[in-house]
């Protein structure tokens, strides 16, 4: 019973935080320095790990597809398989998981420690709402950066698949053939689909991590607990949202 109340409370406070942050949107221009800083943290510094991971995801997809599809002589379709799975599913999901692990945890840790060391209280007494200067720039930054991360994840994954398809002897498909099949069976809507997904994931992750951080009570031990909670909730959220967003976009 208590847990159910806690979950409902979490959902409620998250939505409340969202509306609060959204109500300060006009102040965003004056906060552009903070916004840029968050863009840097969320986008730029996350890029290398996203690129590395999606390269290997693309490669593994190509390998596995080559292995299973050559059984029925369809391995020339690897390009479309890798292309579609990367764009519609794995690109956004992998980018979101990395965002949760790398950015979500950092946000939760920073805001939790601000809360525990009364910095948030200081902001409140200064009549500077935390939702305005701590949450809004992060939400805006993730909205701008997430599609960039996702499209890079998509493309790097595609190229990973192409390279593996060329140099794996059991597959041996030239990049031209790979990309021509990819092009043939994909429309931009597939990619757009993925970008929208990434956007939803990223936004939800940042919002939830902010909320968990700001609702930390107690001492340093609770900071750690908040970080763990933030990452776990983010991962669950990604998968749950994935289902609903996929359905909604079909």
């Amino acid at each position, binding site marked *: 019973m208590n847990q159910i109340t806690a979950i409902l409370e979490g959902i409620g406070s998250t939505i409340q935080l969202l509306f609060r942050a959204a109500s300060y949107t006009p102040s965003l221009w004056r906060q552009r*320095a903070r916004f*840029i*800083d968050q*863009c*840097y943290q969320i*986008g*730029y510094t996350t*890029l290398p790990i996203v690129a590395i991971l999606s390269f290997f995801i693309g490669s593994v997809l190509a390998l596995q597809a080559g292995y299973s599809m050559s059984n029925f002589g369809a391995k*020339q*379709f690897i390009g479309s398989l890798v292309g579609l799975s990367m764009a519609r599913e794995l690109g956004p999901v992998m980018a979101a998981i990395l965002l949760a692990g790398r950015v979500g945890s950092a946000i939760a840790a920073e805001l939790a420690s601000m809360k525990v060391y009364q910095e948030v209280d200081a902001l409140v007494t200064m009549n500077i709402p935390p939702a305005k200067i701590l949450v809004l720039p992060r939400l805006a930054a993730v909205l*701008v*950066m997430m*599609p*960039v*991360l996702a*499209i*890079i994840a*998509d*493309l790097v994954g595609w190229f990973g698949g192409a390279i593996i398809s060329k140099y794996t002897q059991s597959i041996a498909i030239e990049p031209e053939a790979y990309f021509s*099949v990819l*092009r*043939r069976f*994909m*429309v*931009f809507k*597939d*990619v757009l689909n993925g*970008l929208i997904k990434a956007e939803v994931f990223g936004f939800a992750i940042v919002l939830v991590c902010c909320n968990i951080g700001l609702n930390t009570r107690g001492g340093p031990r609770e900071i750690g607990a908040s970080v763990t909670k933030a990452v776990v909730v983010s991962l669950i959220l990604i998968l749950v949202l994935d289902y609903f967003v996929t359905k909604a976009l079909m």
Partner: protein
Amino acid sequence: MNNAQQTARVGLFFLLGLALTWVTFETLSDGKVFKDRGYILIAGFESLKELKQGDEVRMAGVKIGSVEQTRLAGSRRAEAVLRIDPKVEIRSDATASIVMAGLIGTNYIGIDLGTPTAAALKDGSEIRTKVTPDINAIMSELGNLGQKLEGALNSITGAVNGDGKTPGLFQKIDKVVSDNSEKLTVTMTNLQDVTAKLNKGEGTLGRLINDPKLHDELVATVTEIKTAATDARTFVTNAQAIIDQVKSGKGALGALVFDEKTGTDIKNTVANLRAVSDKISRGEGTFGKLLNDDTIYRDAQTLMKKANTAIDGLGDSGPITALGVVANSLF
């Protein structure tokens, strides 16, 4: 790191993202955003098959536009909305068809040139279409054709190879040749002997050809010639029997060459020939008569003709070299 640098990096990063999205968009949708200019034509088909949005429109193989939309029009018609490059004019009698460029589903709309004098189609008008067989139709046609071919081939094979109980043509020939290879060799050797002797002037016939003195001897012995003529006639009859057998087919040539009886007949003939020549050598003036008596000549000519026909007949039955060689050396 200072602020300006950070801002620059974020800006660059964002632009990179925009550029990549743009490139992806261009590649996957054949870039419709800025090329949205151009006029519209409607092409109605019974079925659009595998045609999809973004596919090319080509005229005489040159890309002139793309499929902007595919939609159902009424219950018995599907329409493709084509966006055509404004620089290209399409004649009102040009026809559009769905063309397949690859086996795995690349299609485009092909439009022919039409007649240059016809009016150009205007924006929003409908273009004439014709149905082209799709891959499935072609495949089923091919299937039918294959079945027919197979039937034909089967009957041929039956004839050639036999149907399991009765042997086929090639089997028969093969059997003849292999069963009698020994006899064949013997016969060849005999024949070689005969011809060699003829060449050297040995034996009667050789001498007959090479020695003009015998002329008188031949003329002189008429009786003996008569006997010889009878003997020669026997030879001819025998040869004729052989030829008849060859002509009657059914591995007859094997029988002709290797049948024990026929072989003996040939040997007898050769023996008779020798007897004749012996007699010629013993008699005088005999050959003149032989030459003047054109019955023998005529008989021999008939024989040669018949043999030729036989060889021709053999030739008709196919390029069976082994048999050809045998027949050639025989005659």
